[in-house]
């Protein structure tokens, strides 16, 4: 909580810098020549149209970003809303889109570099590609090492760029000539039909605002700063583009505008050759513009490489890609593998497509536009599914018009691309879907809001919709993990039997762990040397566990854990193994002996998952008594009872203790409680007296009592001793204590485990 605040250190200016720094490099320095050559002076309108499309999407990104300020941006929202298949498409689209964009920025860098330094041709690479490769490798290297100086440099770069461009605009204003602008076939030499194809080309200039969302978790006050930064940076660059492109075209006739280094060329014309006695002003201005262009394209590429690592991380977290990719470098603390893989892609794109800057630009745009379209659909799904926790600070104006418009405009713009880019992007989309079905579907366990929504309304929706949703649903939802913490061979059979019954019922698996407590004085590696001895006892215990579980026909895994801590290690193991339920013996809790109470409270206050603690060495599940007074933990005991009934034919009796005279109410309550929990066939017993005395009286008639904790902290009370548990301990019948942590909402399950 407090820590989280500390992690947020990006203010509004920094956030806008990220957006502007990424966008401005491409639009102004690389494309005006190429785009003007295709559309004539009307290309200014193409830029404005691109800005409008970006703005509509910027609203949607802002809403989603304030609802979920998480690393990953567009991919993350789409995976949460539309599920992992579309998530895979979005992740791939975002990632490849950034790689294409980075390659494009590198080529832009190369174009200006060759005007400074003559570069040779190498093999099949022209000098621009050589410069681009050099740049690409340098940017990857900087990110690999993770020089944090690049970040602060970014702010300086953006400030310098804005100053340079302002000076240029002023100089351009004075040498602006309307005749130059219209002198070659008027404003629309190729007709107005050329506007949208040119927009398709220059849209790459607007691919920066969404990167702000990928670092949303680092923003201070994201509810306010995220929308302002995203919408503000789009508005600002649109205005800058419109003004500067107009200026350039009024200074240099559009057919003559350089295809490679337009800003440097325009600056040389716009500035006077000399200011009074100082000569060479125009040449100097051209050189400054070239330097600016190098900075601008470098910062765009740099920001894109960083953003792609964020997307990889988010995909790894959802198990769409292997987490191998997100390993952190031991010395540089950077996600170096992700950076290297992205770097390799950039190099390939530069080498293969670097002669055609348009293809790189448009491929980047198509992939991003696909992501934007999905993202708008995802927003509508979040709103319509009415997920209560979806609570954005910023909401799009004119819902549902804005997101629908965003999706339509994004896909509409794709139609103006050339077939090669569409084919290329289509190939990546297909690859993403194939990847999902071959790899990710089995691994990921994240269902989208959309599929939850469809499954919840199975009856109301056409079968085809439901079937289609099932057909693409992740299979990684492999049921819960029931972890058994074994300590004592005598209780092994009983614990495994209970765990197996649960696992079988829920379609889950059993993880049998043997936690070997090593005295504090012994280092863990010394203990590991004594492995042979430990292994023997551990192996026979876990072997027995395996056999018992296999008898139930449930998948079982075993694990020996060496630890200095006993009881606490159970919590860690449950967390690190993503256990959904822990089954352990009452004796096991005694491992905690000697620990400071405060530590215990802290542990038991925040259970990582459901806990079932058995008091008893053997278990006979023929007659099961479930006392209840309602509440979260007795929901858990009801689940256990159902599992025992369905897998082991246990007879279930429900018990509710009431005060004298409350029998009728008690029976009504219990009958309803049973029906709601699918236990309508259970025997209903209402007894008067307090629960302790009732249990003492009737407990002996049953073979197992499943008792839910009535309030939090059951475990800590067991460990520290409490009068209620004296009753339990004195009871002959084995008691299974059930405690469920404070509820994890649907939302928490969707967006991953809650904060610790």
């Amino acid at each position, binding site marked *: 909580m407090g820590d989280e605040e500390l992690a947020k*250190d990006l203010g509004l200016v920094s956030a806008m810098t990220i957006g502007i720094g990424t966008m401005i490099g491409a639009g102004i320095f690389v494309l005006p020549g190429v785009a003007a050559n295709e559309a004539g002076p009307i290309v200014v309108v193409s830029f404005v149209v691109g800005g409008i499309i970006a703005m509509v999407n910027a609203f949607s990104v802002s809403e989603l970003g304030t609802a979920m300020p998480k690393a990953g941006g567009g991919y993350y929202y789409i995976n949460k809303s539309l599920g992992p298949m579309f998530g895979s498409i979005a992740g791939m689209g975002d990632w490849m889109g950034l790689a294409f964009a980075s390659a494009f920025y590198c080529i832009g860098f190369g174009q200006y570099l060759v005007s400074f330094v003559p570069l040779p041709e190498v093999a099949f690479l022209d000098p621009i590609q050589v410069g681009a490769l050099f740049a690409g490798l340098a940017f990857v290297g900087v990110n690999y090492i993770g020089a*944090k100086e690049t970040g*602060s440099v970014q702010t300086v770069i953006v400030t310098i760029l804005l100053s340079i461009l302002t000076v240029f605009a002023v100089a351009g204003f004075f040498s602006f000539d309307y005749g130059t602008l219209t002198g070659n076939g008027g404003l629309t030499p190729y007709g107005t039909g050329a506007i949208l194809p040119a927009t398709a080309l220059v849209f790459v200039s607007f691919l920066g605002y969404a990167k702000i969302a990928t670092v949303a978790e*680092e923003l201070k006050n994201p509810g306010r700063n995220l929308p302002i930064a995203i919408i503000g940076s789009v508005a600002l660059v649109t205005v800058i583009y419109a003004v500067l492109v107009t200026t350039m075209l009024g200074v240099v006739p559009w057919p003559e505008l350089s295809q490679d280094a337009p800003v440097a060329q325009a600056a040389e014309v716009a500035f006077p050759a000399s200011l009074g006695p100082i000569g060479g002003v125009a040449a100097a201005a051209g050189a400054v513009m070239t330097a600016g262009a190098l900075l601008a394209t470098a910062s765009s590429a740099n920001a894109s490489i960083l953003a792609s690592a964020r997307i990889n991380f988010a995909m790894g977290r959802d198990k769409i890609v292997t987490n191998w990719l997100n390993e952190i470098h*031991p*010395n540089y*603390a950077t996600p170096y593998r992700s950076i290297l893989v992205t770097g390799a892609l950039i190099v390939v794109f530069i080498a293969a497509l670097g002669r055609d800057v348009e293809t790189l630009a448009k491929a980047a745009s198509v992939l991003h536009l696909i992501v934007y379209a999905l993202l708008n659909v995802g927003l509508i799904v979040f709103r319509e599914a009415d997920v209560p926790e979806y609570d954005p600070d910023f909401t799009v104006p004119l819902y549902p018009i804005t997101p629908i418009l965003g999706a339509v405009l994004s896909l509409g713009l794709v139609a103006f691309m050339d077939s090669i880019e569409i084919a290329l992007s289509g190939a990546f989309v297909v690859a993403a879907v194939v990847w999902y079905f071959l790899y990710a579907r089995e691994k990921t366990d994240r269902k989208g809001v959309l599929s939850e929504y469809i499954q919840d309304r199975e009856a109301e929706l056409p079968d085809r919709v439901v079937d289609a949703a099932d057909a693409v649903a992740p299979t990684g939802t492999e049921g819960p993990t029931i972890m058994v913490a074994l300590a004592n061979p005598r209780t092994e059979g009983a614990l495994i039997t209970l765990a197996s019954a649960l696992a079988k019922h829920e379609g889950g698996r059993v993880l049998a762990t043997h936690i070997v407590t090593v005295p504090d004085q012994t280092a863990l590696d010394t203990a590991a040397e004594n492995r042979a001895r430990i292994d023997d006892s551990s192996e026979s215990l876990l072997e027995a566990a395996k056999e018992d579980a296999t008898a139930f026909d449930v998948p079982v895994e075993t694990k020996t854990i060496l630890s200095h*801590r006993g009881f606490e290690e159970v919590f*860690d193991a449950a967390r690190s193994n993503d256990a959904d339920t822990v089954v352990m013996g009452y004796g096991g809790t005694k491992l905690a002996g000697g620990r400071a109470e405060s530590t215990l409270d802290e542990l038991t206050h925040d259970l990582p998952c459901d806990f079932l603690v058995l008091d008893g060495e053997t278990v006979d599940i023929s007659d099961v008594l479930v006392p209840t007074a309602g509440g979260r933990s007795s929901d858990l005991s009801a689940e256990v009872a159902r599992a025992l009934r369905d897998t082991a034919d246990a007879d279930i009796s429900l018990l509710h203790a009431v005060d004298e005279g409350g029998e009728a109410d008690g029976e009504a309550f219990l009958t309803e409680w049973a029906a709601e929990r699918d236990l309508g066939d259970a025997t209903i017993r209402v007894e008067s007296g307090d629960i302790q005395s009732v249990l003492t009286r009737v407990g002996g008639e049953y073979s197992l009592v499943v008792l839910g904790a009535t309030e939090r902290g059951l475990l800590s009370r067991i460990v520290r001793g409490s009068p209620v548990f004296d009753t339990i301990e004195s009871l002959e019948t084995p008691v299974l204590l059930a405690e469920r942590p404070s509820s994890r909402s649907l939302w928490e399950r969707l967006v991953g485990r809650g904060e*610790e």
Partner: protein
Amino acid sequence: MTSVDAETELLGHVLLPVANEEDALATAHALEPYGPDHVTALHVVEKGEGSPDKTPVEQSEDIAEETYAAVRTVFPDADDHTAYARDVVEAIFDAAEEVDATAVAYRSRGGNRLVQFLSGDYSLKLATEADRPVIALPRQDTADG
């Protein structure tokens, strides 16, 4: 026996800055033979302070948890402390102040000069800017000498 007093004093509460799981385990083992009374593991999440971080916050926090778990395999009662800062050394001293540590114990991560320079080896700054004892632990391991 004033020297004994000084020693117990020195190792009364050791702040142990650790970078990752492996480093944490090695550092903790290096400190273990000296028997500190109390240990607080510190992980500094490097922040850009004005620019995006090298790694997502969530990932950094996972790494922090891993390092604490690694330290606790050696010192089960170790406390933990997470700092967020651009200047790692300053964050270490701030944390020492905050948890009232009697000394800071660290273990150089090694590597040649270039790697040390690039990854920001903090030995020099730690040693020169300290406002309390700083203990350089020996690198007794052979694996990554």
